């Protein structure tokens, strides 16, 4: 029977094939962070349960640590330190490898599980974090769960679930100038809604993806959860194999045999997908959100839809309150709207390639004087490599703060945040109400749109700055 990439991996991990119950699926790797992993371990301890295979479990401290230079366990988030120390103590107690603050391998979990070769093609990796889907770029199933399911995985090395339906999203053709994978996802989610992927595992494919650097594929899979998908995945190719070779936890033996196996996981030509979406990549423009859901986005040269164009009366009310929160009006363009802050960071867009592309815009430019600009590299490795290339200097010369790795201003946990009514252009993944601080107006965009807007002091198209 022909199978999809996802189905092949699922099948090879099936411990019990569900009939009157869901499938029981073996989990290769578990990654924890201090924000939710600490709960799972604590609860496991309270129940006197053990971790079935501590060798396959890793942890980091990324969510609520400060990202100021010289940071330690003290964090601006009230009560934050307790999450950090709990995570550290429990990792030790359960014999779990921890990439602690200021370890050269430290960073946001979804970045370092790839950098360290912990997530591999054909693997299933779980983490009590919704953006675990990021790892689909390696051809792994990244499975985000809550604390209880994480405990389940820790105690049994399995998770139980029905197999999700299969969707193929194909991007075809060449991308326009100034467009990257962030814009592709905003475009997809706008077109098919924030719940468009609900119930599906999504395989991204098509020649646009084939040609895309691996780093940008992470961004694509990362945003699969904003589309409500079970996960996002891309068939592993030579770019993936080259990336993983000689990583600390990658298998060192029988490399060619392994890559052959991984390549064989690609969906069969006649595999059956329950749904197909085809997107012409040349239809995608630099995109930006105007509202409070990633589905509320427009091409940067477009205008916000008008309230009276909404059919459903309940949506109309929603939209009015959304526009009021955002300080915007239906029918308005976002171009030239003054911004207060610009943020480049998060598991979506804080990889080396993201920083390089932003640096190309920032070089010999200055951030507008009224704009607070912050860059948080996604991991210590990204930071170090960027510094070797002099990218940090470009950011700093332009007027960006250059921070230590972590989740940072991607979300507001009561510590550092932007201020009410501040308009922020951000390379992160969620523009939810209050996500970056109470009352903050977040506009999601690609790192180059963020960089270009930071320089202009207002929302502008990156195409404008690159063409100058």
């Amino acid at each position, binding site marked *: 029977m022909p199978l999809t990439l996802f189905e092949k991996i699922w099948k*090879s991990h099936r*411990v*019990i094939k*569900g009939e009157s*119950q869901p499938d*029981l699926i*073996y989990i*290769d790797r578990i990654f924890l962070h201090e924000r*939710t992993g*600490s*709960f799972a371990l604590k*609860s496991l301890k309270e129940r006197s*349960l053990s971790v079935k295979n501590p060798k*396959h479990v890793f942890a980091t401290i990324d969510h609520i640590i400060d990202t100021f230079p010289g940071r330690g366990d003290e964090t601006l*988030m*009230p*009560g934050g330190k*307790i*999450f950090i120390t*709990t995570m550290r103590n429990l990792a030790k107690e359960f014999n779990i490898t921890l990439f602690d603050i200021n370890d050269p391998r430290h960073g946001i979990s979804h970045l370092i599980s790839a950098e360290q070769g912990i997530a*591999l093609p*054909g693997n299933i990796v779980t983490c*009590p974090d*919704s953006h675990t889907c990021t790892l689909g770029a390696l051809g792994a199933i990244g499975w*985000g*769960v*809550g*604390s*209880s*399911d994480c405990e*389940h995985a820790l*105690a*049994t*090395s*399995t998770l*139980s*679930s*029905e197999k999700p339906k299969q969707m193929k999203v194909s991007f075809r053709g060449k991308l326009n100038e100034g467009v990257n994978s962030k814009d592709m996802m905003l475009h997809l989610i706008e077109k098919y*809604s*924030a*719940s468009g992927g*609900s119930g599906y595992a999504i395989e991204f494919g098509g020649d646009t993806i084939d040609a895309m650097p691996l780093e940008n594929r992470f961004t694509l899979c990362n945003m699969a959860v904003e589309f*409500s998908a079970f996960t996002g995945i891309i068939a592993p190719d030579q770019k993936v194999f080259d990336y993983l070779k000689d990583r600390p936890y990658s*298998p060192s*033996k*029988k490399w060619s045999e392994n890559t052959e*196996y991984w390549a064989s996981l690609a969906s069969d030509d006649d595999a059956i997908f329950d749904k197909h979406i085809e997107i012409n990549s040349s239809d995608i423009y630099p995109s930006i959100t105007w509202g409070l*859901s990633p589905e509320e986005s427009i091409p940067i040269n477009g205008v916000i839809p008008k309230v009276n164009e909404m059919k459903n009366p*309940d949506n109309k009310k*929603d939209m009015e309150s959304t526009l009021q929160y955002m300080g915007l009006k239906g029918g308005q363009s976002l171009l030239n709207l003054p911004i207060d802050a610009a943020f480049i960071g998060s598991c979506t867009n804080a990889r080396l390639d993201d920083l390089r592309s932003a640096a190309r815009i920032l070089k010999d430019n200055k951030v507008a004087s009224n704009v607070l600009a912050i860059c948080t590299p996604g991991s210590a490795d990204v930071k170090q490599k960027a510094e070797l290339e002099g990218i940090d200097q470009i950011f700093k010369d332009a007027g960006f703060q250059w921070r230590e790795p972590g989740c940072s201003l991607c*979300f507001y*946990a*009561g*510590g550092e945040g932007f201020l*009410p009514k501040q308009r922020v252009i951000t390379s992160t993944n*969620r523009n*939810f*109400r*209050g996500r970056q601080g*109470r009352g903050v107006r977040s506009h999601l965009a690609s790192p180059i749109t963020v960089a270009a807007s930071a320089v202009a002091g207002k929302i502008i198209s990156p195409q404008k700055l690159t063409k100058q």
Partner: protein
Amino acid sequence: MNWSSAFKGVTAPLLIDNIDTDQIIPSRKMKTVSKIGLNKSLFANWRYNYIKGKKAGSNHDFILNKKEFLNSSILLSGKNFGCGSSREHAVWALKDFGIKIVIAESFGRIFKNNCARNQLLTIELTRIQIELINELIKKDVKNNIIEIHLEKKLIVVPNHKNFEFDIDPFLMEMLLKGQDFIEYSLGKEKIIDKFLKNDKNKRSWAYL
């Protein structure tokens, strides 16, 4: 929670799409590594007014602050309820408030699983059905009690209408038995170990 008899409760309609878990409980309210006492943080940004970052009384416009809805145990919502962050605190906060059932057009996957693991029932209905229930509640706020019969897969709005719903039979069994998922799977340890032995031979590269 005993799901074998009918559950009766007050329903609070919150018909907004894409209510994310950051709204159900803001991140800044997850202050300790504990699951209890989260009631007061439920929908904090909507339930309370804030002046300069400080709580300044209740927001009387918010449904759960209205007299008739203070004791709500059923929530009625739109599309994609519980999308976003995986935080299980969203479920713990709902439970701590007293919510036992969420009815929505669709749910965020992780949220829905988190509910199941915590004995909170999620029911999916169509937009039309949800709007109808909403209307029936609004028409007669004083008698806003609906019944949920899990085993019969039935929602009863007394003197009005019944709505059938679908639920995964396994999930229903787990709810009815009050069975813990981890214990259930720990019971399969022998099968898991047998799988592991085989798999280690087949996919040795995946083992550290």
